[in-house]
């Protein structure tokens, strides 16, 4: 080894086949797969010549330096100072720790930290394995690239962005943080936007890195038609949680782009929104979270494409739900207390008809095998307290449509023609409604020697209601003719005693294991009281199927409780075939034995009627699942009339996924339920498909067919015809609708390219979710996204519909 270098302690370890001392030109050269370790850097080359005179080191022949931080620099010829820090490198390539790459015919490194690449190329893509010389998918070719390690910055001069060797964009000067930087103040990737109401939009977010655990992002957006939209987002993280606050606001230039109130926010000059969401972990069992959003008008979020966590993702659940919640959980206990505020996003929905709920408490505690009695004790508590300003109704015969607000120019919000119990449902009572429910259940499995399972069951439940309807403002007075509008506090108790009998059999054959289990339940209870006085808020939905066949109380909420004596009988089959394949089946029926059938006595929303349980012998329910191999799952379930076996409800689905193919199909068909105001058959078919090909490419598409729209059109036609025949002078003769069954409720298709350094995604989506009664156009949106790893993301969303009048947006003149 040749000790060199100024610092006495620094030892340089040189390992080579031979060392040649050349006295006359005073050089020392190591020859033959040389390896030198010095100051944490390793230098490898075929030949390293050290010129004592000029104190320069020249390494040639697949020379390579590996820095202490893992950066690898290779080149044909290195001409460096004797401590290998500075110098020139010919035709070099640098691979950084985050797999980004520099290459250049010539580069110079000065004082060990500034690297200047002449005619350098930067890319984040891996070179093609089999043809390394092929240009990577994208690269930035610049006259000079300067990487300042101390500043952790990379500067590009006269840069050209090239895709597969083809120059796409020319950027005179560009700079960005290097691989070691996670958070850096500066501009982020621009975003583009185009909708008919806003014009073309260009937004350039500016990120301010105030501290490692809090920051501010300001996003100014210039919109050609509406002017300047300002958005700000504050993010803050502390020891056991984090939260963010978002605000947006604009002084609209062209208010005519939006319909006048109440169909749009055309009258507002300033429009904006503020939102905060966060979550705090109090201890391993408890967390507190909130997501509260408010806007100047209900259309702002969608008109200006403001991203809000309070808006549910699916196109058909469009409302902003603000919630604050405290949640606690251990292995056998669940506690959840929360409040809700609902902001519907379409003019069709009246915000005052939505309740402000606070608090709603759900608590469930289990004690497994309590001493002396054994089995399982379960404590359940629910407290619900809500207020509503305007009552909401639903006509049982919606053909003769009436509205709550009828003015010469418009009419809004469903009302009833006749406000009588058998003609009109009260889906939401105005005023304040509160209920507290507590229930104790006990059950225990007794298994006799031959394998029969007897499960006695006992339960006591008590509810206290406090209902003070408000019949003063809006259309609230109409409630008086339907239900008793007096303020009152009343209670309800429901003791129950029951027994469940199961006798499972098992047979294992060579090809599979089968389990057949007959199940029978019988329960005795008094009748449910006061069902007519209850404003049913949380138990409006009742779907009798395999999941509640063996529930002791089949109502979906606490406002109603199942009374009278009842028996549920069914047969359950479960087969497993090998590791992955399985099948199961459940068929059953429920019998009302005595007392008053809770499902035959409707409340203010007639829950229970037309549910299949409202007859002495209930409808049959069945559910089957079959997974022949991993990747294909077929499911079907249904409810069949107890006398005619006609299908009342059918749900079917198939999901298939195999290496590059993934399909999922869902079909539903529900017969009309006239007592609930559902007069038409509801039917839908949803298909989503994605295929990936050529390693990085994938195509995805999904379409939702609304199979009952043609029946809706025919009904409208029948009404219009009836009107025309009644008053031929003032109404025109309607034409027969020729809409076929396959109407697309929503469709979207997307193409995606994704490899280790690029995400390119273009998607088109169309839906009539945002269209409201009276407007014709659907909102069509194109989303374009190009993300070059480490360079930032460019995304652009354009709404194709030139004249879209959904969401309070006036049809555009342009």
């Amino acid at each position, binding site marked *: 080894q040749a000790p060199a270098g100024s610092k006495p302690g620094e030892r340089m370890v040189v390992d080579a086949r031979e060392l040649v001392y050349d006295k006359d030109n005073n050089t020392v050269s190591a020859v033959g797969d040389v390896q030198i370790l010095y100051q944490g850097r390793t230098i490898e080359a075929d030949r390293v010549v050290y010129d004592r005179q000029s104190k320069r080191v020249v390494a040639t022949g697949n020379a390579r330096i590996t820095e202490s931080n893992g950066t690898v620099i290779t080149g044909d010829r290195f001409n460096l100072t004797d401590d290998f820090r500075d110098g020139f490198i010919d035709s070099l390539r640098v691979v950084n720790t985050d797999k980004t790459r520099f290459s250049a015919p010539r580069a110079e490194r000065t004082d060990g930290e500034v690297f200047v690449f002449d005619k350098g190329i930067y890319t984040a893509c891996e070179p093609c394995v089999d043809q390394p010389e092929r240009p990577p998918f994208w690269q930035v070719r610049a006259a000079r690239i300067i990487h300042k390690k101390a500043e952790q910055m990379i500067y590009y001069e006269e840069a050209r962005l090239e895709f597969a060797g083809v120059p796409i964009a020319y950027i005179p000067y560009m700079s960005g943080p290097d691989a070691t930087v996670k958070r850096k103040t500066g501009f982020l990737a621009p975003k583009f936007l185009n909708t008919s109401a806003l014009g073309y939009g260009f937004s350039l977010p500016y990120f301010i890195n105030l501290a490692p655990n809090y920051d501010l992002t300001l996003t100014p957006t210039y919109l050609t038609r509406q002017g300047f939209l300002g958005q700000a987002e504050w993010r803050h993280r502390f020891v056991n949680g984090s939260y963010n606050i978002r605000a947006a606001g604009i002084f609209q230039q062209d208010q005519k782009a939006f319909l006048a109130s109440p169909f749009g926010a055309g009258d507002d000059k300033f429009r904006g929104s503020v939102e905060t969401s966060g979550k705090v972990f109090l201890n391993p069992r408890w967390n507190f979270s909130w997501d509260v959003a408010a806007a100047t008008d209900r259309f702002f979020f969608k008109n200006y494409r403001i991203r809000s966590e309070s808006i549910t993702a699916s196109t058909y659940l469009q409302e902003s739900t603000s919630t604050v919640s405290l949640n606690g959980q251990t292995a056998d206990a669940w506690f959840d207390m929360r409040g809700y505020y609902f902001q519907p996003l379409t003019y069709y929905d009246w915000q005052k008809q939505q309740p402000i709920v606070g608090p709603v408490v759900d608590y469930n505690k289990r004690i497994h095998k309590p001493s002396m009695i054994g089995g399982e004790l379960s404590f359940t508590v629910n407290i619900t307290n809500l207020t509503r300003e305007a009552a909401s109704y639903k006509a049982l015969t919606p053909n003769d449509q009436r509205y709550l607000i009828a003015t010469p120019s418009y009419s809004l919000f469903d009302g009833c023609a006749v406000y009588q119990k058998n003609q009109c449902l009260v889906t939401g009572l105005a005023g304040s409604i509160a209920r507290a429910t507590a229930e104790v259940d006990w059950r225990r499995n007794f298994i006799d020697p031959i394998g029969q399972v007897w499960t006695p069951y006992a339960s006591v439940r008590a509810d206290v209601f406090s209902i003070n309807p408000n019949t003063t403002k809006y259309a609230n007075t109409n409630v008086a003719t339907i239900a008793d509008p007096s303020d009152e506090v009343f209670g309800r108790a429901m003791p129950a005693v029951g027994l469940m009998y199961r006798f499972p059999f098992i047979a294992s054959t060579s090809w599979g294991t089968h389990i057949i289990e007959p199940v029978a339940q019988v329960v005795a209870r008094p009748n449910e009281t006061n069902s007519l006085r209850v404003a049913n808020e949380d138990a409006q939905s009742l779907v009798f199927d395999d999941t509640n066949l063996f529930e002791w109380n089949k109502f979906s909420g606490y406002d109603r409780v199942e009374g009278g004596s009842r028996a549920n009988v069914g047969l359950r089959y479960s087969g497993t075939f090998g590791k992955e394949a399985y099948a199961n089946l459940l068929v059953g029926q429920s019998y009302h034995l005595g007392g008053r059938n809770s499902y035959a006595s409707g409340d203010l929303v007639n829950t229970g009627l037309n549910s299949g349980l409202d007859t002495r012998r209930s409808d049959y329910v069945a559910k089957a699942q079959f997974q022949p191999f991993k990747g294909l799952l077929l499911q079907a379930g249904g409810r069949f009339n107890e006398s005619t076996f006609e299908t009342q409800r059918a749900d079917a689905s198939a999901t298939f996924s195999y290496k590059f193919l993934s399909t999922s199909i869902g079909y539903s068909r529900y017969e009309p339920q006239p007592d609930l105001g559902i007069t038409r058959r509801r039917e839908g078919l949803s298909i989503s498909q994605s295929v990936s090909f050529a390693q990085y490419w994938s195509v995805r598409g999904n379409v*939702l067919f609304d199979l009952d729209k043609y029946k809706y059109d025919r009904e409208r036609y029948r009404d219009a015809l009836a009107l025309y025949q009644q008053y031929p002078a003032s109404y025109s003769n309607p034409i027969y609708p020729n809409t076929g069954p396959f109407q697309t409720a929503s469709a979207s298709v997307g193409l995606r390219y994704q490899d280790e350094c690029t995400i390119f995604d273009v998607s088109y989506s169309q839906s009539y979710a945002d269209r409201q009664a009276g407007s014709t156009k659907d909102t069509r949106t194109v989303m374009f996204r190009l993300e070059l790893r480490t360079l930032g993301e460019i995304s652009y969303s354009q709404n194709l519909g030139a004249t879209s009048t959904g969401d309070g947006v006036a049809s555009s003149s342009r």
Partner: protein
Amino acid sequence: CFQPLYGEGTVSRVGGNVRNAMLGIEVPEIKGLVGHYLRNELVFEFDGGGEPDRQKILKLTATTRETLEVITVDYANGRADSAVLVATVDWQLTRAGSNETVATGQSVVRAPYERSQQRFASLRAARDAQVRAAKELAQLIKARVAAALVAG
């Protein structure tokens, strides 16, 4: 041929009969609402009796996932008038102490519910669908665990 699953003579792969093997299954906490109801239904199904706890020789761990599917839509107001809650559970039955897998699987339940103009009612219907799905998943998983326990 068929024999009672909980009969004394129905031998299990892990020793003793299926009945006692099930008494030896421990089910740790599963996070979330579906997790709470699934875990506690499984604990009752495996050992809902009165005898003192047996030594736990098996452990059933599970993770849950829920998604929502919209299939029927009301054209007049552009709103989903029903939805289907799809709850998926990936479960593993392992020997206590070692992580030797006795059985693994994925179980799925689709629980449809009605939606209405009242958002609170739709929200509570979705919550009830989660609870129903969790209880049905417990039955499906119990059956597949029982099948896995039965000797060859």
